[in-house]
């Protein structure tokens, strides 16, 4: 038979490997559940079925589209090909302005309406979502 020391060592290794496997399993499992996808309005339009998950939509705030009242702020996100209407009530970041980049996080009502829970702050006045930068570059 193996000595006590070898047995202990094997036990230790088994514990180590199983805890590593468990860790990876846990992480991957909750990654699956908690990941938020980032889409552009065009990508939303081309969705086959409406997703129930939380998503992020990025683009530019369309000119003259901000409509504000005491409870809500509505606006339109555009990527210059397609647009999507956003309904929101809550805090907006400093750089939330027309003709500036914006990222909204929330749920799709249908392919034209998006109910946002959060508008994300971008700290750079020149920030533009990458897809849009590409689009503008093509023009």
């Amino acid at each position, binding site marked *: 038979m193996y000595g006590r020391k070898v047995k202990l060592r094997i036990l230790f290794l088994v514990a180590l490997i199983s*805890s590593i496997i468990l*860790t990876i399993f*846990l*992480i991957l499992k*909750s*990654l699956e*559940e*908690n*990941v*938020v*996808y*980032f889409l552009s309005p065009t990508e939303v339009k081309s969705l086959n079925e409406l997703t129930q998950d939380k998503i*992020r939509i990025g683009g530019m705030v369309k000119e003259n589209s*901000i409509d*504000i*009242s*005491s*409870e*809500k*702020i509505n606006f339109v996100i555009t990527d210059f090909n397609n647009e999507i209407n956003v309904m929101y*009530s*809550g*805090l*907006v*970041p*400093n*750089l*939330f*302005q*027309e003709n500036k980049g914006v990222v909204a996080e929330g749920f799709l009502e249908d392919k034209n309406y998006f109910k946002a829970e959060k508008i994300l*702050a*971008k*700290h*750079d*006045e020149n*920030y533009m979502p990458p897809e849009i930068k590409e689009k503008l570059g093509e023009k």
Partner: protein
Amino acid sequence: MIFNYIGNYSLIISVIISLTIFFLSISNLQKINIKKKINLNKLNFFQFFFVLVSFFSLVVLFVLSEFSNITVFNNSHTTKPLFYKISGTWGNHEGSLLLWLLILTLSLFIYFLSSKSRPIKERLLTLIFQEVIIIGFLIFIIKTSNPFNQIFPIPKEGLGLNPILQDPILAIHPPVLYLGYVSTSIIFSSSLASLVQGNVNNLWAKHIKKWIFASWIFLTIGILLGSIWAYYELGWGGFWFWDPVENISLMPWLSLTALLHCILVLEKRSLLSSWTIILSISTFTLSVCGTFLVRSGILNSVHTFANDPERGLFILIFLFILVFLSLVIYFLFEKNLKTNNNKFNLLTKESSILINNWFIMYFLSVILIGTIYPIFLEVLSDQKISVGPPFFNKLLIPFLIPFLIFMSIGPNLNWIKNKIFENKIQLIIFFILNLILSFFIIKIFGRITLTFTILLAASFYLFYITFKDLIKKDYKNISQAISHFGFSLLILSILMNSILSKEIIANLKVGEEIKFMESTIKFKKVENSSRSNFKSLVGFFEINNKDDKKFLFKPEIRIYNQPQVITSEADIKTNFFKDKFFVINLVKGENYFNIRYQEKPLMIWIWLSTILIAIGGSVSFFKRYEK
């Protein structure tokens, strides 16, 4: 401008000195001539000195607003206050790397002076490894991000520093954080050197412990400063957002914390030597990794200065070489580690430290994967995703419970052997009492969840135990008692803060009123004023409590002229029980203001307890050794 040349040439001189030190150390190592006096101290000093000269030239260029220098042109402006001209030196990619290098050479200089008790071969090897890092960074700076590039014709005015970076805390945040990051390089080099020499033992542990504590203290304070800044400047109304950049500073901290505990086991019991080496390597790798991810522009955030793929690629290759080399060294010399026949007993301090290390490694891997998985996915499949707070909360919080319980039990166990603890019953009864107490706290304030109740109970438990240790007047372990007490206070404040915080968000016009809880918030007026580098809009808000107490809040919006950026300055009223936080934003025109009012209990205790954690570390750092 003369300083451009001075700075540039001192950098080149330091490359030459570094190469000299590198080859001198190698030749000294081969000669094994220990008696021969080596003048490496002087060379180390000159290396540090020339980097310092170069750094000062950049500071002078910033102070004089010399726009012939591209770095100054891109990041400064004549109307900026002097203080921010100076702090602007490291508020950009090139300057911050120069600061990295400066601290790198400084720590090598200090190391070589303070390590005279160690075998000369180990010191020389440390020197060699450290020079590899220094030369790598020097080449990186000179080739891809030279701060002394010139521009012609000379512009009249600079582009200005991002106003949210114009802040006293953010002026000292990078240097402190870098002191923490960079001094881990010494731990890295020294651990590799002692591995090669077969010196990984309790004496080495005692020696390197100082460096581990020093970098840990700086890293703790650096992260704290960043967090405080994010709290009052970004107006997000919190102190931690699981933002990739925050995670990246937390990862080396976690690894270093594990190392800090592990080195104690090595010192006292000569165990866990290979694990110590692995942690030393991973800590420094994570530090460089942090610099790479933040500076390469892969993560889009406040900290990202430039989007230059060449820079990212360089650091990536450099990082890869470092990891590869250290792993090769590890596997080649692993047999040098003396396997100790000391037995591990289950109920001892060393095994509880091992358990603590396992938990920390788990936290670390969760954060690591959550941070880099989106990057890999984007590179591989072009899909853009983000991993937010729910992911981290879900994976970290349940495991925090056993971690806290182990933390309350572990430190009171003895080394080597332990009797089953005597006052077991008292401890269990106390835990049940805590459980009931926590249940009622959560029931009163809503949000009854099982995890939250147990978590609160566990942190109360830790709080009680560490408090007991703190007032025990046992000065031998006073530093540990302070740090652990600080940690329990931190967890408790964070929990209470997240359970009890209340807020309201609304859009208001001047003169309008809104109800919040049992008080009313009235928007009285807006005042305009103008300063040298920004225009300011101050909103006056009056909050009437039900018992007719009035509070006036004056949150501000600043519209900076160069570069044109709008920032919000929150108005925060702090006391020991809660913070009142008021922030406004401008939305289209100037009719409606987007307002947010928050009451955040125990906010100040989050900062104070973190300071306490760092104080515990400092006590240990300055402690004289008994015997």
